[in-house]
């Protein structure tokens, strides 16, 4: 990975932040790379770790800011929620990485060389320990599917966790679409039925008029038949919607939901 890739990924991962926060964070890291210099790019990338992790840290910081903002402003010594990276109080996805960080600490404890040499293995330990940490967290979330998950890579799980808000939104959207289609179908059917009733009344009136005012009577009868034609069209549309579009959409969404899992099975 190079700087561009890192920044692009980070930008994608911060999609759910307000525009101002995203711009601010991206600017910071863009500058950070520039100040470190091109020759240090790889080193910075290694130390920053995965963009996912950096994004989590940024988001965690923002959450802490809103949750504990008052306390922090009140200069309480136990400034709430703020994280020091290695702090044990980190929630959510970060919590899953804590075992990794703990590993880093342990490695440093036993190594205990100069600050810099201690750092190298420490960071490596953190990275290596990240995968089991993530898998563990996920298994904890859905114990029933633990067996399946051993086949998933940590990256994929991270991706799925990150995409889960999208998936939820997509599911809501699909549900809304199916409901809307069904609603339109019902609407067509009811309108069709009402049209037929109205047409029968109009034709009846037309036949009555035929003997008094033949011209107006035939116009009424003709209108009645036109309305019946419209009604039949509407009912056909409704039948199409229920018999074709709604089932298709349902099947389509089921296929969409299943797709990520099938792909994984195929790769194994």
């Amino acid at each position, binding site marked *: 990975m190079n700087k561009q890739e890192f920044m692009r990924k980070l930008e994608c991962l911060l999609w759910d932040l307000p525009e101002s926060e995203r711009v601010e964070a991206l600017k910071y890291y863009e500058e950070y790379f520039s100040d470190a210099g091109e020759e240090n790019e790889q080193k910075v990338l290694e130390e920053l*770790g995965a963009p996912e992790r950096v994004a989590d*840290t940024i988001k965690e910081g923002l959450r802490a800011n809103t949750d504990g903002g008052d306390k922090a402003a009140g200069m309480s010594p136990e400034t709430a929620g703020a994280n020091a990276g*290695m702090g044990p109080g980190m929630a959510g996805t970060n919590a899953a990485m804590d075992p990794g960080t703990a590993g880093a600490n342990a490695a440093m404890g036993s190594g205990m060389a100069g600050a810099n040499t201690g750092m190298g293995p420490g960071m490596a330990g953190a990275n290596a320990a990240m995968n089991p940490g993530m898998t563990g967290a996920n298994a904890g979330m859905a114990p029933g599917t633990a067996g399946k998950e051993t086949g998933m890579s940590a990256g994929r799980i991270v991706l799925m966790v990150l995409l889960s808000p999208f998936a939820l939104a997509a599911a809501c959207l699909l549900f809304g679409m199916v409901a809307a289609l069904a609603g339109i179908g019902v609407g067509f059917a009811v309108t069709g039925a009402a049209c037929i009733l109205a047409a029968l009344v109009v034709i009846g009136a037309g036949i009555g008029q035929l003997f008094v005012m033949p011209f107006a009577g035939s116009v009424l009868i003709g209108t009645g038949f036109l309305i019946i034609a419209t009604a039949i069209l509407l009912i056909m549309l409704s039948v199409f919607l229920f018999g074709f579009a709604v089932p298709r959409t349902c099947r389509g969404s089921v296929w969409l939901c299943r797709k990520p899992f099938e792909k994984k099975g195929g790769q194994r």
Partner: protein
Amino acid sequence: MVFNTGAALLDAIVLAVVSKESEGTYGYKITQDVRQVIELSESTLYPVLRRLQKDECMVVYDRECAGRNRRYYKITDKGHDLLDLYVGEWRQYSGKISGILEGGSQT
């Protein structure tokens, strides 16, 4: 380093580092300076800077440097107050810990 640095202590260190420069200082340099004294992952500092900025303990401004803009962080009066509070707290805390660990004259 076997000891963890808590959030408040990290805030204090960052404020102290930033307060050293009357003209303000920038993200990369703050990170390097803080890393002189504690273990710190490079990604940890941004949220801290952002939070201190939001709490009005620091202000940011852009300054042209080598053909591009660089964001500088500068401590505010409120930041100085908070730093003073932290320094006082730290003196008490570290004194007590030193006392018990090194067996000084503290009771």
